[in-house]
């Protein structure tokens, strides 16, 4: 089955560098993922305010995947969980199924349930897989302690997502271990980052992020690594705000999993989009030492 990138709105708005990094990483690993135009928003923001719009948007993306005969690949846990949930609902609810297909018919599309969405993490665990990855990574990130942030929608609702155990997930941790870094246990691992409340209730959003940042520090993590751009943005902005407020500069910085993989693959600072990102000095030096021309 061929693969196509499903672009995440938030990533392309705030994290162009990470999108770029994702493409560099999959190219380096030799996983062919195509870029295709024409997708729409996954529907995540609409779930709480316009349920039908959410189902329709996810349904259309799946229909586009179906038409191309390709699986959607996203780097965003929210896009992933949202589309999966809509797929699940459409498979059970015939009237919504008819509604979606009635509208999609106008542009010659059809949702039949064959379209599949995958998280890039899931794709890489499958191909090249942990052993394959270990062969390609040189383990030079050893000594870096990582708190893995799966993102709510990677794990829950587990009967819909079924990517990993909702209570003690470990697949992402295995991937981190494969880079030579060490995934450490931390108490807030399963909690929400608080990003859905940014702009709605900033105080609560910040409190949730702070709880997680504190927990990662208690676990002696050097880095938080996220599988979702929302978590990444939330940790980054909360860290900046907390440093500004308290002057406490030992708050754990974060990276996305593609950036960590990129570093472990020797892609260098530019290729993984690390300009202007604050990292532990050792890791930064490592990233800079790996600086190689992009299209060598």
């Amino acid at each position, binding site marked *: 089955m061929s693969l196509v990138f499903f672009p995440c709105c938030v990533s392309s*708005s705030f994290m162009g560098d990470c999108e770029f990094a994702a493409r560099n990483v999959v190219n380096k690993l030799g996983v062919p993922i195509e870029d295709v135009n024409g997708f729409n928003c996954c529907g995540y923001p609409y779930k709480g305010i316009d349920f039908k719009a959410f189902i329709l948007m996810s349904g259309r993306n799946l229909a586009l995947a179906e038409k191309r005969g390709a699986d959607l690949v996203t780097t965003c846990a*929210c896009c992933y969980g949202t589309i999966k949930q809509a797929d699940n609902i459409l498979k059970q609810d015939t009237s919504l199924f008819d509604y979606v297909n009635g509208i999609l018919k106008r542009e010659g599309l059809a949702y039949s349930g064959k379209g599949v969405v995958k998280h890039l993490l899931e794709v890489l665990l499958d191909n090249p897989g942990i052993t394959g990855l270990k062969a390609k990574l040189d383990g030079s990130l050893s000594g870096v302690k990582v708190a893995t942030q799966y993102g*709510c929608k990677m794990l829950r609702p587990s009967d819909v997502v079924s990517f990993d155990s909702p209570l003690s997930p470990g697949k992402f941790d295995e991937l981190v271990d494969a880079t030579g870094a060490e995934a450490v246990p931390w108490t807030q691992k*399963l*909690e*929400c980052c608080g*990003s*859905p409340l*940014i*702009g709605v209730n900033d105080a609560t959003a910040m409190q949730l992020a702070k709880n997680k940042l504190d927990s990662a520090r208690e676990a002696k993590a050097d880095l938080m690594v996220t599988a979702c751009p929302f978590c990444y943005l939330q940790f980054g902005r909360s860290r900046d705000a907390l440093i500004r407020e308290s002057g406490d500069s030992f708050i754990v910085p974060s990276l996305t999993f593609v950036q960590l993989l990129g570093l472990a693959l020797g892609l260098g600072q530019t290729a993984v989009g690390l300009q202007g990102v604050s990292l532990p000095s050792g890791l930064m030096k490592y990233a800079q030492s790996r600086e190689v021309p992009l299209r060598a």
Partner: protein
Amino acid sequence: MPKATLVYIALLIGLAGAAYKVSTWFRYSLGSKKFTASDRVTAAAKGILQTLLSNQFASILRSFFLDVILQAKLIRVSPLRWIAHILVFGGFTLLLLMHALGVYVNPLFFSNYYSTLNPFLFLRNLFGALVVLGLAIQIYNRFIHRDPANPPSSGMDVYTILIFALVIVSGIFLESVKITSVSAFRDMTEEYATGESEASLKALEAYWVANYGVVSPELAQPFSPEMLAAGKAAHDASCAQCHAPAQWAFMDYGVSRLITPVAAWFDGAATRTSLYWIHFLICLVGLAYLPFSKVFHLITAPICLMANSVMDRLQSNPANYATKQILELDSCTHCGACTRNCTMAFVNSIMPNQMILPSERISSLKVLASGKPLSFRDSLVIQEGYNQCTNCTQCTLVCPVGINLQDLWFSARETLAERDVPNLLVLSPLSIYRGLRKDEIDVPSYARPVSNARKAIADEFGSFHWPGVAYTPHEEKMLDTAGMHLRQNAGAACFSCMTCTNACPVVKAHQNPGAALDLLPHQIMQAVKLRLWDLIFGSKMLIECLGCYQCQEYCPMKVPTADLIFALRNVAVSRTYRNISQKALETL
């Protein structure tokens, strides 16, 4: 009236229009009203001077060659559209210089300038043909090949293509009538072939009928070789010096062959003069109306492209940024590239609000920027459309004239927020974008949209109590699809073990969650059983649920807690929105 006077009048109208447009760049604004027009003029002058003297000048130069001259952004959007645009732009500019202003421009380069001689005779047609080809592609793109992703064409789109087409077509027609005109031929011979005898004039006419496309009522082909030879002699003596073969004007000549059967009908000095005036006046109308039409992007698009190559919201002078945003509105050509790439445009098929489509928002942005009053209903429609945006940046990345659309939407949404029209879309992760740009928003304005939306919901549901409300079939469906059958009391399995509440990160984030959130998750489940809708829909918990699904995951009775909360929120939002819309209709 002499031609020159008319040209000056048209030019004056055009310039006055341009001056008016330019004044709006400094007078209008989206968002910040802090600066007066004179502040902004001063800031702009200072900014331009500083930029030109700094190393940013290199960026401007680069943008001028790449984006303005070569139109690099357009070729990335569509190579076909790039070809069409270059053809029309290039062809028309060359026609303007070589043909319209030929009397002034050509003598600078050529010593012997006659519009009837080559290279001018041929080039005029060649340039015209470029424009015709470009226009044909544009007409095909816009009207024949209907791409469903394209936004609808506006009157202005039609006008723009029409004015260029009319200029060219009227010019070609005028020339082709002149080619066939025997009266024009005879006028010329009277003036320039004065010494010729009657017979040789006839031979000359025959020669021109045979070779130059003149349609003579008396003479008909074929002519004897002797006659043609005599005609050629007269031609060489009196005409050849100023007349290259008419076939060089390939389009004019081609059309003249088509009108040959009716050429006699078109012949006559009066017809030629009228045709000339039609062509001339169409050009003047185009010139006078230019600043009010989208052809004005000729001026604004280059400024916009170059300004955006060096300007940034956070670093540039806010006064200049406000000015640039209004200039951007005048740069839009309604080409539809933004809408074709919009991640939300598809939603327009279920929500018939054109303000969802980025290309359609520009007109309402102009109204907003001018500060004209908007009815409650219009504000509501515009606000709803603008706020559907997920801020994915695609529109800004593809805009061929380099408009920073995403920033325009941001400014416009903040301007609208000041009108205090309730906006329920802010109660969703769509607000994340706004939250991440919190530092750019005035502190008192920041919290207003969310508190207004909450108030609207509280007002809606504060008034009714037991025994509850009847649901529309749509709302029932919505609750059903979320996995909960309200009517059948599926929440009945809940026995208030509080696992959901204990797992909820929002609850844990508060010192006194009961007071802060009105209802805790398990209380919402109980309230559903008791149908205490006013309590549920008015509660903060309903809006502040993150959707992290911990409650649902850990529920021992498999109550779909999170799905139910989302379904309830949907009902709260849709009911409130329906009532606000109804009120808006009543204000009409």
